[in-house]
């Protein structure tokens, strides 16, 4: 396991993590919003590992808020 895998496992919002009460609808809305935010910033989300998208966009994990960087 490399370092990236290690940190990915630490991310509670990774795709295979327990969903913790989120329903499929809200998950879909969140993904849609994330993809549209990527496009607004000139990133084609289909060319990115979805797990890395929040990091690329400078977002706090699991939210659509920026980290302030």
């Amino acid at each position: 396991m490399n370092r990236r895998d290690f940190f990915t496992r630490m991310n509670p919002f990774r795709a295979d993590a327990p969903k913790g009460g989120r329903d499929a609808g809200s998950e879909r809305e969140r993904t849609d919003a994330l993809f549209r935010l990527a496009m607004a910033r000139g990133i084609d989300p289909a060319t990115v590992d979805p797990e890395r998208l929040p990091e690329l966009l400078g977002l706090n994990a699991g939210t659509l808020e920026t980290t302030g960087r």
Partner: protein
Amino acid sequence: MTDDITTSRRDFVKGAATGAIGGALAGMGFYSYSGSAYNRLPKVARAQQDFGAVRSVKVTNISETSWFNNAHLMEDIRTSGGLLVDQYTIGWGPFGNGKGPGKSSYEDGIAPIKKMIPNDLEAAWAVQKKSSLHPDNPGGYACLIEVEDLDGSKHKYLLDVGWSYDWMDQSFKREGIDQMLRSGEIEALFISHEHFDHFWGFPVAMKYNDHLPLYIHNGFYKEGKQYVKDSGYKGDPKVVDKEMTQVRPGMMLIKFDVPIICRVYGETSLAFNVKDKGLVLISGCNHQGILQMTSTAYSKLKYDNDRFYGIYGGLHISPFEDWDPKYDDLVISLGKWNFERVGCNHCTGHLTAKKFVEVGYPVVRGTARFRTTSPDYLGNGDTITF
């Protein structure tokens, strides 16, 4: 003389605490990098649907050259407003209105050609070329899929209809698609998604068969649905609203709900279980991402040998022939599925095909004919059988 070495209680406690904390941290580190840590991760639940099997699947690439100049395409998208722009407003044929980038509309574009489609496509495209951006750039994506059932019977399907009326009509004639449509040999048309290069050539198919069964994603916008009608379609489109739609034994249509650049929503892809070989995935553009495509198939479909055998189509990694280190993640991630045959092209990108070869993936090379620019991957007129 000997020195008495004594340890105070405080030093002892400090040492013990440092050792315990350091040991615990080191232990956690070793553990998290060990194989046993994986055992605690939730397993991917597999609710594998048994959808039968086919004997073989043959794909003929009618056209994978969706456009001929990347710089022109990107310039048009950028000057029209960027990746979120509505594709019908960009000003590309057949929906150009001569007002410049980002100022067109479906209604403006269709008005002067509505009476010409689908029977006078040459005239319609000529009209549009006068008022559209980079009128010689459009090409299109389409492929013919021939499925052989276990009893030896064969069935033909069309995946996508490309973009330019001129280019697609030439391409259809080159591969005999016009005759197959006319005779009813082609049993259904699947539109993978609403994008210009996969869907806007729709009237070309209608010219030869205006009632063949049609499958579209339920995320189609009103303009797309209207275009189906305005192109003269006489059938009743099957609007795909379930994640899995079985087309025939061994052939499954998978729906993905995902926002796509240029204001498109959703893509459908095809999966086949080839007897004694395994799973074959065929896609238009894979805007859902190859990771989602493969993981969905893995978790939801049952296939021979529990093995991914082949993949065909656009894999959407470097569609504009640029390269970014983040694309390497996708290239590497595809390796875990151990495909035996990779028939990529189109929005996969030539650069990606070369990267695939570098990391040892079995990419099937093409013949670089009919304006496909290199043999890095399966080009126009090439075939692959799974």
